[in-house]
């Protein structure tokens, strides 16, 4: 069981080029014929952050110079997380025709989802850079802590794209549940408000997996080292997701073709 899951993984790695072309195609085809192409992603994120920034800085009575970089980073990273999770619901269901006509490692489909969202993220990062440049905020050395955290994100992303994809192919009730969970998560995970605003309840945030995963990448990029509780929380949630996904995938891999 685990052996065939492992061979699925190794052959998916050999087919990385295919996953990459498919991910690239997803993006280019979506914008083929448009003048600025995939930079619509950048533009719409920019407009969203620009308009939300002024409004919420006023509502929360915050300094623009600290709030804008925070909001830009949060929104861009959150958009990645949320799009990844909702795309994951479709990682196998959306590829029904392909799954039924060629034998292909299933992880190719989930890698495609991860790479596609990585490409979107790269387009959106431009907005963050612009905000930093305009506000003359320079990232500190602490920012390098975001690199291993971001690599962890990619591993967890692959696990989520695979296991959630399989679950959603089997149980068609799950995609809408996922949708509403992500909507709630947006509001409770400190995307638009800063943790310090919680006054006294901050420590509870470490229980929220979305918050700690977000914070291990966002914190360093804002020049703050996340606390140990955040790291412990992020690492344990990641471990749980990775282990559960591996077991699930090993068990149901042979059934996915029947479910889609």
């Amino acid at each position, binding site marked *: 069981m685990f052996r065939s899951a492992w061979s699925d993984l190794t052959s998916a790695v050999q087919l990385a080029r295919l996953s990459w*072309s498919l991910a690239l195609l997803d993006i280019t085809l979506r914008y083929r014929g448009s003048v600025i192409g995939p930079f619509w992603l950048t533009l719409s994120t920019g407009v969203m952050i620009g308009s939300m920034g002024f409004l919420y800085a006023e509502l929360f009575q915050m300094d623009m110079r600290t709030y804008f970089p925070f909001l830009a980073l949060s929104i861009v990273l959150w958009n990645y997380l949320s799009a990844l999770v909702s795309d994951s619901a479709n990682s196998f269901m959306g590829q029904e*025709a392909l799954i039924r006509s060629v034998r292909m490692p299933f992880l190719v489909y989930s890698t495609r989802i991860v790479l596609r969202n990585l490409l979107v993220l790269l387009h959106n990062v431009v907005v963050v850079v612009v905000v930093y440049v305009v506000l003359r905020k320079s990232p500190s050395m602490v920012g390098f802590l975001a690199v291993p955290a971001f690599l962890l994100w990619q591993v967890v992303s692959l696990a989520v794209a695979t296991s959630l994809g399989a679950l959603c192919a089997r149980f068609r009730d799950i995609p809408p549940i996922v949708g509403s969970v992500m909507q709630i998560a947006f509001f409770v995970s400190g995307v638009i408000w800063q943790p310090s605003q919680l006054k006294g309840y901050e420590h509870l945030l470490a229980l929220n997996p979305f918050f700690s995963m977000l914070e291990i990448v966002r914190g360093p990029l804002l020049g703050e080292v996340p606390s140990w509780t955040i790291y412990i929380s992020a690492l344990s949630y990641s471990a749980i997701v990775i282990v559960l996904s591996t077991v699930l995938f090993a068990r149901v891999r042979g059934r996915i073709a029947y479910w889609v």
Partner: protein
Amino acid sequence: MSAELLVQNLSLHFPLLHGSARSLKKTIVGNVTGRVSSDGNAGMVVQALRNIDFHLTPGDRLGLVGRNGAGKTTLLRALAGIYEPQGGRVRVQGSLHALLDPNLGMNPDLTGRENIRLRGQYQFLSNAEIRRMEEDVADFAELGDFLDLPVRIYSSGMIVRLGFALATSIRPQVLLMDEWLLAGDANFLEKARLRLEDLVRGAEILVLSTHLASVIEEWCTRVIWLDQGRVRADGNVADVLAAYAAGT
């Protein structure tokens, strides 16, 4: 290494999931209340293949006949490794190619050339092989300058030619084919027939599912008649086709 295809006691069933059979609610509610409904954990299933046995070696050309729903396509998918069977086993030696969906992954927004490259990647080819495939397909499909234009603007004849050229550009040792694929204008038909025959001759083992008795008489050396997922008859072409014609 010579090709081999060994099928032992192959059984395969489909779970019936998305009718009313097994939703998340029923699974949870069923488990929580301990009132596992009649379809229970085994679920409602459709028995698609039952106890199929055969062994093919180089030179064998197997034809599959049977009514719609007899399990022909499912058997081909199981041979191709797409469906993992619940019982028995399938062992394949040698390169295998399954022509199940001739328009596999053809994207109308991509150019002909991009479609060729993408298909090459789907078939796990190397860059050099993809270049060869590109030449081969371009040469056969006679698309000229259209090769670098989106498939969306092709005439239907051009799409057929491209699809056919793509499908027949891979030369495996074991060839699985769902329906004899031939369509298109008369001039193309003759050329296509030669190419397809060349492909079939080049394969060491052929498994072909078709409704056309004439195709089976011309190409196959053995016929299996599938009925409701079971082997109803297995033997030489004339006998099985005669029994099939009498039995339906």
